[in-house]
């Protein structure tokens, strides 16, 4: 990194000398004895100067005179000015600010304050200065940071899903590719480059709802049962809710797009997808594209439940409509860009990135004029993106620069660690060492020393003190190097993820995922869990499990429509709720099947009879009746599976004769049950 140049203008040699001493370790210093000299140096060195430290009371031309000259010559926007003066009357200060001074340091000088103000001002202006010049570097850097955020998110998902972390990157690249092809083909969707960038970025979040899905289902080898598949399907709506529940950024375009993608990336063009059954272009184009990218990458990747298909096989399967129904335009885009599709799949993340950066540069060249406007927009979007991802991940972000040796923490991070946002000379900072723990600090440094320009990333787990407690954290860091022949370390970007918290959060989300969305009853998996726990707690007690379904439900659906069918199910759930105690477990087991679990002391027959008749009723001209089988723990024991099978056998025993009735399991059904179990075992 080139050292920045600072001009110090003060008539007192001693004052200049004190300031120079404070700053010369990290900056090149030029001195001026009065305002005239200062103006002359500004004129000849304006492009090299990074900062002016300006005294007010000087001979020949005072500080105000220098500021006026800077305004006349438009230098004031190029070089920030910090006033250094014993003059601290408010009229002086005000006049200096009016003339464009950035900051004010009153004498006597405090070394720490001077250094910090200088760094802050330089940081503030660095951005604007790069805007005046060319923005390539800035954009490049922002892209890198943004990519890192996506990497981090991928790591979290990988951590949870057991999916390849590359899936998110691939989906993103393929999304970008499809959208670019689509943009060339039609202007139907009015896609701008900015839209394409945002949709690609947001695609990283498409499966975020899977955080709420039971790991056992998520990582189950082999086919999911219909019940498990129903649970799996909730991830799109859950993901969308997570996005809309975000406390911040709700109005941002990126967040809106992320919502679309999460909710609708499993819709089908023919309307047979979920969760809303949207048809055709009622599905936002963002979600349509991500859906196709997702399917292609899933087909060509290895998963716990399947080997990978080849590129050609995957394309053929998608084109033949075997893996969903897609917009024909998108299928065309895929088939016309087959080679790029295949290549994108094989690229490693770095290649993907450089490809993207190239495109950004190309676009900038086309966009002559208004470059800085555009850049401002770009930067603003990057800022939103970064803080958005940081919010999603609740991460402590940090940036370290070698010159000056300074650590900048995100607001969240500083709060979490209980230290200030800017720390000079962090390696020797005792407060930082105390906050992080000196052992972890050493581990971090050791790991950092293993990075090279070719392998700049390092990921490790270590214990870090947060809010006064030691917590396990995942730290992801990327070292940044100069582009010289012998690269030097320029700085480090990093993120600390509190893994404790994410565990807790996942548990919370799991809790949310235990209920059936329509009826509010427990779903089958969570009911099963609770029933098992209840019986473990009191194996001596009496338990009953009732399993039932709604008679002629299909008929109700066919005659009166699905919406009516849903209301019937809600009615059954409400009546179940009203006729049972809070301690009983009511569950919608799937479709029109329900389950009820209760503990009883005496006379279970009467209780079941009451509940059965409470559920059966007339509902808007439709007779709701149910067929129910009941099993008691005193007959079959306190195993959930035994209870369930017995109740199920009783239910089918009723059905063989009639419907709209109930019966208890008894020994007369033992033979049927055993025969069934035997045939089940054979089938396995």
């Amino acid at each position: 990194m080139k050292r920045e140049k600072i001009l110090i203008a003060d008539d007192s040699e001693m004052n200049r000398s004190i300031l120079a001493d404070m700053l010369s370790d990290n900056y090149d210093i030029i001195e001026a004895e009065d305002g005239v000299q200062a103006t002359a140096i500004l004129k000849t060195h304006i492009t090299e100067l990074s900062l002016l430290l300006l005294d007010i009371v000087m001979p020949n031309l005072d500080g105000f005179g220098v500021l006026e000259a800077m305004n006349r010559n438009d230098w004031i926007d190029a070089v920030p000015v910090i006033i250094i003066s014993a003059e601290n009357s408010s009229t002086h200060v005000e006049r200096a600010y009016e003339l464009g001074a950035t900051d004010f340091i009153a004498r006597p000088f405090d070394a720490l304050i001077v250094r910090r103000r200088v760094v802050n001002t330089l940081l503030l202006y660095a951005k604007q200065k790069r805007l005046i010049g060319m923005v390539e570097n800035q954009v490049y850097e922002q892209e890198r940071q943004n990519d890192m955020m996506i990497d981090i998110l991928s790591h979290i998902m990988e951590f949870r899903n057991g999916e390849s972390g590359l899936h998110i990157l691939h989906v993103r690249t393929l999304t970008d590719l499809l959208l670019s092809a689509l943009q060339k083909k039609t202007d139907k969707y009015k896609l701008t480059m900015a839209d394409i960038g945002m949709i690609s970025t947001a695609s990283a979040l498409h499966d975020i709802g899977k955080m709420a899905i039971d790991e056992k289902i998520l990582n189950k080898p082999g086919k999911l049962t219909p019940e498990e598949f129903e649970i799996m399907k909730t991830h799109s709506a859950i993901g969308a809710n997570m996005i809309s529940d975000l406390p911040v950024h709700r109005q941002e375009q990126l967040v809106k797009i992320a919502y679309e993608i999460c909710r609708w990336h499993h819709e089908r063009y023919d309307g047979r997808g979920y969760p809303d059954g949207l048809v055709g272009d009622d599905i936002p184009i963002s979600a349509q594209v991500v859906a196709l990218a997702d399917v292609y990458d899933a087909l060509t990747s290895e998963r716990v439940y399947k080997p990978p298909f080849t590129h050609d096989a995957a394309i053929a399967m998608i084109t033949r409509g075997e893996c969903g129904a897609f917009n024909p335009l998108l299928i065309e885009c895929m088939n016309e860009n087959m080679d790029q599709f295949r290549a994108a799949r094989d690229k490693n993340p770095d290649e993907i990135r450089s490809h993207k950066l190239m495109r950004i540069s190309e676009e900038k060249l086309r966009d002559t004029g208004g470059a800085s406007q555009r850049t401002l927009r770009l930067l603003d979007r990057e800022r939103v993106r970064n803080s958005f991802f940081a919010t999603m991940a609740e991460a402590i972000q940090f940036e370290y620069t070698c010159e000056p040796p300074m650590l900048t923490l995100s607001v969240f991070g500083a709060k979490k660690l209980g230290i200030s946002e800017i720390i000079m000379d962090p390696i020797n900072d005792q407060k930082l060492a105390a906050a992080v723990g000196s052992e972890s600090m050493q581990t971090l440094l050791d790991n950092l020393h293993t990075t090279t320009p070719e392998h700049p990333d390092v990921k490790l787990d270590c214990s870090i003190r947060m809010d006064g407690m030691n917590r396990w954290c995942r730290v992801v860091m990327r070292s940044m190097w100069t582009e010289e022949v012998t690269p030097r370390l320029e700085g480090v970007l990093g993120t600390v993820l509190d893994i404790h918290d994410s565990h807790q959060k996942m548990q919370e989300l799991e809790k949310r995922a235990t209920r059936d969305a329509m009826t509010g009853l427990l779903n089958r998996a969570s009911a099963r869990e609770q029933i098992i726990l209840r019986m473990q707690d009191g194996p001596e007690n009496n338990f009953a499990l009732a399993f039932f379904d709604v008679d002629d439900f299909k008929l109700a659906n066919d005659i009166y429509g699905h919406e009516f069918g849903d209301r019937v199910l809600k009615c059954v759930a409400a009546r179940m709720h009203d006729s049972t105690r809070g301690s009983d477990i009511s569950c919608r087991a799937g479709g029109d099947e329900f389950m009820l679990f209760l503990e009883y002391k005496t006379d279970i027959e009467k209780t079941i009879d009451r509940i059965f008749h409470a559920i059966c009723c007339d509902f808007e001209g439709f007779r709701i009746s149910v067929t129910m089988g009941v099993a008691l723990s005193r007959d079959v024991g306190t195993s959930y599976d035994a209870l369930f099978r017995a109740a199920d056998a009783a239910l089918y025993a009723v059905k063989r004769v009639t419907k709209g009735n109930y019966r208890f399991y008894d020994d007369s059904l033992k033979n049927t049950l055993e025969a069934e179990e035997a045939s089940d075992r054979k089938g396995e």
Partner: protein
Amino acid sequence: MTMTLETCYATMGADYNDVLGRLRSERLVQKFVLKFLDDKSFDLLCSSFAAGNYEDAFRASHTIKGMCQNLSFTKLMESSSELTESLRGGSPSPQSEELLRRVIDDYRMTADAIRAFESELGA
């Protein structure tokens, strides 16, 4: 008696702890204390005041005040600060002469202390 930087500060009515707190190194404090005598502002103050050039006198007094602030020379800082205010605007006030005499006294005391410290260093 041995004259340390700290006793030198005490002798001239200055605040050693304050300056060390800000500059953060005894080496730096010493360097600038020794530089103080090289500054020509005091001579400029006396000569321009005598010649009735109050604008230059104001700036010279202002510079002395600034140096004293940076070095925590409390006593001289107070008198030079008052003198600076009395000269602001380029014309003297009735108190200016009296204030100048106080600055001269304080400056001499400060300069004596520094010279004593300097000779101690040399010895």
